[in-house]
């Protein structure tokens, strides 16, 4: 069968082929390359501060790392000693803050998403939004003022630091928990109601397990956010050289304040102090990175595929 008016020449040689003649012309190709280069360049530019930061901290911090750094505190030493008290302090203070914030945050999110209606809900959402913007020093001063009422001026406790960090952490937990609860599809709740299940049981047995992975991830990211907060801890937990794991018993050191202190008051052996400060900063970065990676792994492992 004869083909139509076109000559049976090689593809693209026919003059009546409009599509092939216009093609991905030179101009479009150039624009493509230029834009790709620009966007990739912007990405590299954005990554430079991040990598340079990590590189610098690592470079200066590694000399400060040692077994001693992780196992000994700074009690009674000059130039030597380690930061184990600071590391323990960070873990304890952040842990107590999480213990306070997570139940409050998740229950508030449950209220906002499952029960709340009308004006109370709008008011609460507004206040949560405001709280996400509170400067950390304000949270610290609030915690100090609160405890001063009960314990008198000059009080310094580990748990005060936790209280300050909770003020910062609760709105983050509420926000992310609310998002995750919203994603749980409504037809699962309906299926549960149709079986004759009361609402509270639907929430605890169906909604929360379905949202579990997202909730855990949200909490871990919230922890990563507050673990390096320095300002509130400066005014609440004080500075101390010895190990203290009791949040209710006097001053407690933590990595952020430790780094600040070593840098500000290096004492006699300056370089050693600076090294330790950088090492503390490096440890903090490592903690944040571990938390973030763990959060992703937990999410991938435990997430619920909702078909």
């Amino acid at each position: 069968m004869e083909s139509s008016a076109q000559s049976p020449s090689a593809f693209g040689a026919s003059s009546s082929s409009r599509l092939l003649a216009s093609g991905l012309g030179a101009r479009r190709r150039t624009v493509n390359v230029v834009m790709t280069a620009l966007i990739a360049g912007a990405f590299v530019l954005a990554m430079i501060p991040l990598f340079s930061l990590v590189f610098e901290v690592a470079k200066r911090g590694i000399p400060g790392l040692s077994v001693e750094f992780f196992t000994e505190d700074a009690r009674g030493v000059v130039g030597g000693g380690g930061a184990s008290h600071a590391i323990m302090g960070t873990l304890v203070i952040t842990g107590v803050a999480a213990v306070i914030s997570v139940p409050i945050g998740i229950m508030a999110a449950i209220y906002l998403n499952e029960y709340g209606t009308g004006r109370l809900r709008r008011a609460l959402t507004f206040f949560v939004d405001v709280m996400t913007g509170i400067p950390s020093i304000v949270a610290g001063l609030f915690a100090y003022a609160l405890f001063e009422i009960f314990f008198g001026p000059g009080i310094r406790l580990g748990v005060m630091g936790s209280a300050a960090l909770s003020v910062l952490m609760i709105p983050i937990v509420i926000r992310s928990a609310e998002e995750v609860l919203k994603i749980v599809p409504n037809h699962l709740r309906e299926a549960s109601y149709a079986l004759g299940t009361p609402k509270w049981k639907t929430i605890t047995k169906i909604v929360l397990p379905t949202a579990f992975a997202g909730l855990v991830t949200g909490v871990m990211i919230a922890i990563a956010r507050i673990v390096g907060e320095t300002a509130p801890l400066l005014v609440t937990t004080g500075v101390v050289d010895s190990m203290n794991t009791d949040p209710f018993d006097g001053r407690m050191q933590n990595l952020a304040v430790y780094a600040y202190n070593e840098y500000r008051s290096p004492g006699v052996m300056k370089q050693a102090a600076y090294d330790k400060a950088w090492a503390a900063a490096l440890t903090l970065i490592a903690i944040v990175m571990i938390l973030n990676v763990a959060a992703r792994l937990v999410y991938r492992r435990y997430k619920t595929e909702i078909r």
Partner: protein
Amino acid sequence: MLGAATKKRNEPTEKRGEMTDSRPAGTTSTEPVTSTAGRPAKTIETRGVNLFYGDFHAVEEVTMTIEPNKVTALIGSSGCGKTTFLRSLNRMHELTPGARVQGEVTLDGEDIYGDRVDPVAVRRLIGMVFQQPNPFPTMSIYDNVAAGLNLNAKRISKAQKDKVVERSLRGAHLWDEVKDRLDKPGGGLSGGQQQRLCIARAIAVEPEVLLMDEPCSALDPVATLAVEDLIGELKSRYTIVIVTHNMQQAARASDVTAFFNLDATGKPGHLVEMGPTETIFTNPNQKETEDYVSGRFG
């Protein structure tokens, strides 16, 4: 009122000018019919039910009797209120914010909207299967079927639970396909299997009435046939109400058909006619019904 055929107790369906009925006169529709499990299946009656979403009047003045151990199909074009009406039968309608119910709905004489009636208790007696299969994704197949038992107040031993799960899965014609993988997640089945899983889940709590909202519309024809066969079997033990926009399905699978219609968009849906399926499809009383079932509008 023209256009609304109501069925009263002890009276056969009325036709304009004639009295015809496929059942012998004098049979009541309220004799408790004993199911094979030994428990009487129950009758649902509605009187003057009006349903609202806020100010919008969605369904108007429905008075009907849903007979025990029969499959009642609710048919009608989209948006005429069949699903809204169905959801009012087990107090799911009121879960929508702003939704209201007026009128009376009784389960074997007891008003389910009574002041002191717990909606949770109502839903344990009147179960529901939804259009989109919705097995709980965090639970295994076994746990999905047992969900009704686990989530309600019942405390039963593992051995008893095993029996209930097996009975329900057999009842839903799913046992042979899943008996070797009861601990696998509920979401890993095909659409038809998932829907049968949802049916197994619904019957595991042994309700008295089973409401089904377009249960086959998300399924392929083979799965649809399987579910329809299942419905035919289940009616010996439960009263079944099924909403469907597929007229052939209503004709195949139901004993009684109720036709809903809208006068115009924005107007409330109402019950036009209700009667034995064969009558509705071959010799309906109302012209509207005849036009719908013969496909003149839909």
